[in-house]
């Protein structure tokens, strides 16, 4: 699975993108975020406050219960501030 990070989440995680192999027990966004938090201290710190984290799966905004599967493009970022 391809992961993208943007804005301060990218800075805190320390990379703009990473390729991960999804373990079988991870099947939704909430599970993915839990699993990522255990990946490193940087991930744990970046994803500490879920109130500040937005997720897109295959370029659509989704909630924590949305399914994720191998091959998805998942982006994790703070609330948007364009315009």
């Amino acid at each position, binding site marked *: 699975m391809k992961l993208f990070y943007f804005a*301060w989440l990218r800075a805190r995680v320390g990379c703009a993108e990473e390729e991960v192999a999804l373990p079988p027990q991870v099947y939704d966004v909430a599970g993915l975020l839990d699993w990522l938090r255990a990946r490193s201290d940087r991930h744990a710190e970046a994803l500490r406050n879920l109130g500040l984290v937005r997720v897109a799966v295959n370029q659509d905004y989704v909630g924590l219960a949305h399914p994720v599967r191998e091959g998805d493009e998942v982006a994790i970022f703070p609330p948007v501030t364009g315009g």
Partner: protein
Amino acid sequence: MIRVQCEDFDVGAELERLTADNHRIGGVASFIGLVRDMAGGDRVSALTLEHYPGMTERKLAEIEAEAHRRWPLDAALVIHRYGRLEPGDRIVLVAAASPHREAALAACHFLIDWLKTEAPFWKSETTPAGERWVEARAEDDAARERWTPTLEV
């Protein structure tokens, strides 16, 4: 039409192109967003915009399609820049053209309000104290809500 680009745009030329050869259009409403030199009491010397290539274009196209669905528009335009900008620089141009002003004005307002909460852009400000990410504002969410139908079909 939507465009995401690093370079500046010529407002006059863009609006000219939007209405060219369509004499049904009786009014064009436009909004231009500019970089301010102050934020939260601090001087801002630059604003750097980052976006999510692919999803940005997709979301802007959805927003434009939604405007066409809601109002009888002859044309709509969204141009959004990314990269490093300085105070006074143009960030975004939104325009809507219609036979009558009501639809053009409302659609233009809708486009910028929805864009602010839907399009995946993030701003970082350069201030004397250093670089900092702009936080999302509750007012922008409230502005978006204004356009949410009370009865979802």
